């Protein structure tokens, strides 16, 4: 069994800062991490490897510095790593990104047939959740998104049973390999790396592939291959008005009591939303 896990290196979004004057993103000094959602998928792939045996290849498309994320994944137990990097990929939107990644997966399949592709649910910087479905569609793989659990996987019969989150509940699906899976967050916890994997990760000779290595067509990658363009970037407008503060009377030199504050808050709420007051009263009157 050959499993490919697509991971993306992203800036640690909790620490994104916007330049106060130019409104641009200040990337300097922002640490890069593996997209947190990808770790749930990587862990699930490693669990399949532990259970039924598999070769796990991690794949990323990005600048040369994305190498750190690949080594991190190797230290967690991935077997091989491919860095897809080329200036010609710059500016790719999700359609072009999924095309480029698919070209690399096809090349990996020439070495050893790929049975499963894992992607993250979404990235924290792009946030689109489109690249996984894009890859599945291009490869003609069964598409299994928002998976909460892999119930069973039968290598001989090439069958897999999963639980998939849908809006109103959980679908239990049975399908055949090959497929593309995105795991829902919180479904597992990424393991700690083992010492020997860490040493191996440090020494591992990464495969670095360019557009020409995978045979991707120039017109389908980068800006040329991207139907969408960002026409404007801006900082959300702050709401014009700040909150009206709830105040209550208090005996001199003392803070108002919680009771007084609460009573004032109730009046403020019902005053601001007279309709809400009627509804609440109607509900209460109906004894709900």
């Amino acid at each position: 069994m050959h499993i490919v896990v697509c991971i993306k290196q992203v800036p640690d979004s909790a620490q994104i800062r916007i330049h106060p004057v130019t409104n641009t993103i200040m990337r300097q000094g922002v640490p890069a991490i593996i997209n947190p959602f990808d770790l749930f998928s990587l862990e699930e792939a490693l669990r399949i490897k532990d259970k039924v045996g598999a070769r796990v290849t991690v794949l990323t498309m990005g600048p040369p510095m994305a190498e750190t994320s690949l080594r991190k994944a190797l230290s967690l137990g991935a077997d091989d790593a491919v860095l897809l990097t080329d200036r010609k990929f710059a500016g790719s939107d999700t359609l072009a990104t999924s095309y480029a990644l698919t070209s690399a997966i096809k090349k990996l399949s020439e070495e050893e047939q790929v049975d499963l592709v894992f992607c993250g649910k979404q990235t924290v910087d792009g946030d689109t959740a489109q690249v996984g479905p894009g890859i599945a569609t291009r490869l003609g793989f069964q598409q299994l998104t928002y998976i909460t659990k892999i119930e069973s996987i039968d290598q001989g019969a090439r069958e897999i049973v999963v639980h998939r989150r849908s809006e109103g509940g959980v679908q239990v699906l049975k399908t055949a390999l090959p497929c593309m899976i995105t795991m829902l967050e919180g479904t597992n916890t990424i393991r700690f790396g083992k010492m020997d994997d860490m040493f191996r990760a440090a020494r591992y000779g990464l495969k670095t592939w360019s557009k020409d290595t995978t045979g991707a067509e120039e017109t389908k990658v980068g800006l040329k291959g991207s139907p969408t363009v960002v026409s404007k970037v801006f900082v959300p407008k702050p709401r014009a008005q700040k909150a009206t503060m709830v105040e209550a009377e208090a005996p001199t030199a003392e803070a108002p009591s919680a009771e007084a504050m609460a009573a004032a808050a109730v009046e403020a709420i019902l005053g601001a939303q007279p309709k809400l007051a009627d509804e609440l009263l109607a509900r209460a009157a109906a004894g709900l």
Partner: protein
Amino acid sequence: MSEPSKPQGRKFQLPEHLKEYKGIWVIVEQERGSVHSVSWELVGEARKLADKLGVEVGAVVLGADSPELNAICGDAFTYGADVVYKVTDPVLADYRTDPYTRVMTDVVNTYKPEIVLLGATTLGRDLAGAIATTLATGLTADCTELDIYMDNRSLAATRPTFGGTLLCTIQTLAYRPQMATVRPRVMSMPDRDDNRTGRVVEVFPALREDDVITKVLSFIADREQNEAQLAFADIIVAAGKGLGKPENLKLVFDLAKVLGGEVGVTRPLVQAGWTGFDRQVGQTGKTVRPKLYIAAGISGAIQHRVGMEKSDLILAINTDPNAPIFDFAHLGLVGDALTILPALTDAFGKRLSVNRLAG
């Protein structure tokens, strides 16, 4: 990079063969006979955009033929659709990516809408990602605002990026249709007009179950699982780290009970295991739009804010008068949530029971 006063898109020429793409579609999300309300929110939004462009609103309803499905087609008109594409086949009874993708690809290629909108739900995002690939066109996910650049009649799809710290407006150039997904509760629910009707275009795709590899073995409904129905609550009492310890969550549950509302939380509480993920509000949780949102002990981080700022009325309770939440809440109360919450429960209880006696 500041917001230009007049919206203006990137200049481009739409090739002649793409000019026949006309009309705005919403793919109506129905599972087991019930429609996800985001679909009607989008029909309402599509109506506004279509009126700007002077084109029709189409609603695509897919499923196995049934009386429920017919009722859904009727509802689509009352919310603002001009045409309903009713696509029926037994194979479409349950949502599965592959048959839905094949059918939608064909229907789009046949009837050629210029814009296709879907809810940013598990179904909508799964399907949108697949058909944007088969149609080789642009898709903008999780939009919070849609508009039309009138100079070139293209869709201006605005979405948060980098966790809501920035907004960006995305445009699909010389490709059609232009696709976007929008989160539930971001657009408001349109009013029904029961007198509205329209054309129904029936499509019979003639699928074969044998051609579909993925099978649905069973469906475990949330109703049986007791999950919080946050997205549809009219009143939400939400708790943040300011509550101190898990036992104190009782205070928000008590207040929610008196108000007939639901309980929401910030992400750190979910991560610390105080309660389930189904109660998380924010960028990586649910988007909510209740009539009243009471935020207790919540700082108001951008990732939380994007999930609740469209609430009609926000009351924030925080010990810190400089907490960012006071910048966008409507009402603020500086104080200790641990004492204010029980007092609010009492005050609302009294207020409502007094009226019950009087009424």
